[in-house]
């Protein structure tokens, strides 16, 4: 009962903002940035701001598993501190063993305490893949496998946000031959809403935008790979400023030819923009300063499942299909040859048998 009261007593985001001296229009300005990020019409800003102000300050448990900390680096060292710091000031980050001072038993105690106090309401953020081979023995902390820790913490979560391609689909850890049996969160947790925010790393604004969207409106509209459509609804190719060159058949053939200098399409140099859903072309990186294609390098498709095993980064996306078709044609040709040889041998055998019978 006292726990329930405690939850009800948690301040709203609006109250936190008021206490921090954030004015109404400043908050509206922040929300305008957020609605723009989420591809919501700017006219929806007022309603969004109202919903966000009324939401209770959330408890967040951030669990890193088989990861490189790149996603957390992307989030905390982002070039848009005004947006991210507002979010970090607003949420109650109750557990993140990379950032928190406590370690070992004390850190785990903090997690269990946060879980108990906010049971059914906290947001669980997962970073990194989960090893499953040998019953998860490739990843153990505090005498518990990552699998056990994830299952235990997921039990009381309102929703799980899998940040980075590793937490979403297994990522680097799951690349062939996947020695640890790495999987993404949604492969293990089936009874809670899982929101994937893939990328290597994901765009920081997409991570915070997803959290804010969840606070204001609950689980956002997701695509087949559980990615928020607001950020992953279009391919890189759809929103690329070089698309016009693709449409006109103008392609750079090498990274230093005339086409590359003129900013032509990088498709033939391996750009995976046509098959990659992400917001890099619109939100961009480093506070909107640029993004890979603008810098002259093709998209490597880091927000797609299994992107490490999709062939070389410098082959056109269709090269793999052509290779497979080439192989199948060769196999078919070999099959025909083997069949023909077998047919001839059979005829010869029949002739021999016939002559022997005669």
């Amino acid at each position: 009962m006292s726990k329930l009261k405690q939850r009800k007593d948690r301040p709203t985001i609006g109250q936190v903002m008021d206490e921090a001296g954030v004015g109404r229009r400043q908050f509206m300005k922040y929300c305008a940035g957020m609605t723009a990020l989420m591809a919501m019409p700017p006219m929806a800003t007022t309603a969004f701001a109202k919903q966000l102000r009324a939401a209770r300050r959330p408890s967040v448990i951030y669990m890193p598993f088989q990861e490189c900390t790149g996603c957390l680096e992307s989030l905390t060292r982002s070039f848009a501190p005004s947006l991210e710091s507002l979010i970090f000031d607003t949420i109650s980050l109750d557990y993140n063993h990379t950032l928190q001072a406590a370690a070992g038993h004390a850190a785990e105690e903090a997690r269990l305490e946060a879980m108990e106090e906010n049971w059914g309401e906290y947001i669980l953020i997962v970073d990194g893949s989960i090893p499953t081979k040998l019953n998860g023995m490739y990843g153990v902390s505090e005498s518990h496998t990552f699998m056990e820790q994830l299952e235990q913490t997921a039990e009381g979560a309102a929703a799980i946000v899998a940040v980075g391609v590793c937490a979403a689909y297994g990522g680097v850890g799951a690349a062939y031959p996947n020695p640890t049996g790495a999987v993404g969160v949604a492969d293990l947790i089936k009874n809670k809403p899982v929101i994937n925010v893939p990328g290597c790393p994901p765009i920081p604004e997409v991570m915070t935008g997803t959290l804010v969207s969840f606070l204001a409106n609950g689980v956002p509209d997701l695509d087949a790979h559980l990615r928020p459509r607001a950020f992953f609804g279009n391919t890189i190719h759809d929103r690329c400023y070089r698309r016009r060159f693709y449409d006109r058949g103008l392609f750079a053939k090498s990274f230093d030819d005339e086409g590359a200098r003129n900013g032509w399409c990088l498709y033939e140099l391996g750009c995976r923009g046509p098959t990659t859903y992400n917001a890099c072309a619109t939100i961009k990186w480093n506070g909107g300063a640029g993004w890979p294609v603008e810098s002259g390098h093709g998209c490597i498709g880091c927000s797609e499942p299994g992107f490490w095993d999709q062939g070389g980064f410098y082959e056109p996306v269709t090269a793999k299909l052509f290779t497979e078709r080439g192989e199948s044609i060769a196999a078919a040709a070999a099959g025909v040859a083997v069949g023909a040889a077998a047919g001839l041998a059979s005829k010869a055998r029949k002739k021999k048998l016939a002559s022997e019978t005669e």
Partner: protein
Amino acid sequence: MSGAIPLKVKSSPKGVTIGGGVKAIGFEILSYLERFLESGESAAIDMRGLPMAPNEYTELLEMLGQGELDLSLEMAGTTRIRETAFSGVWWIQHKGPDDRIQSEYIEINRIPEFLCAQTDQIEDAVRELSDRLRGAL
């Protein structure tokens, strides 16, 4: 004509060469403006969501020109609200404390939504003003 006081334009959009991409956005703005005139329904176009080359951004800015109003507000970074040479078409840019653009959009409205007082704010104002007046009695 209608006898309305004409808008004083600081930079005329006339004579500016309009590229294909900019023309497409221009027609979108025109359709929103016509709809606003007919039904009063406002609209906005998110500039960061448009796949534009840097020169097209400048072209669009030049094509829309500059109207009478150009407001700068300081709130954790500069917010600039500019009336374009076309009445009812506003260019709004919010920057953060690091001077980087947080959001940028063209709004088709009588006055930008951002400047309007919100209902809950007005409710608070009624309560606060009432308290102050009662205290003054």
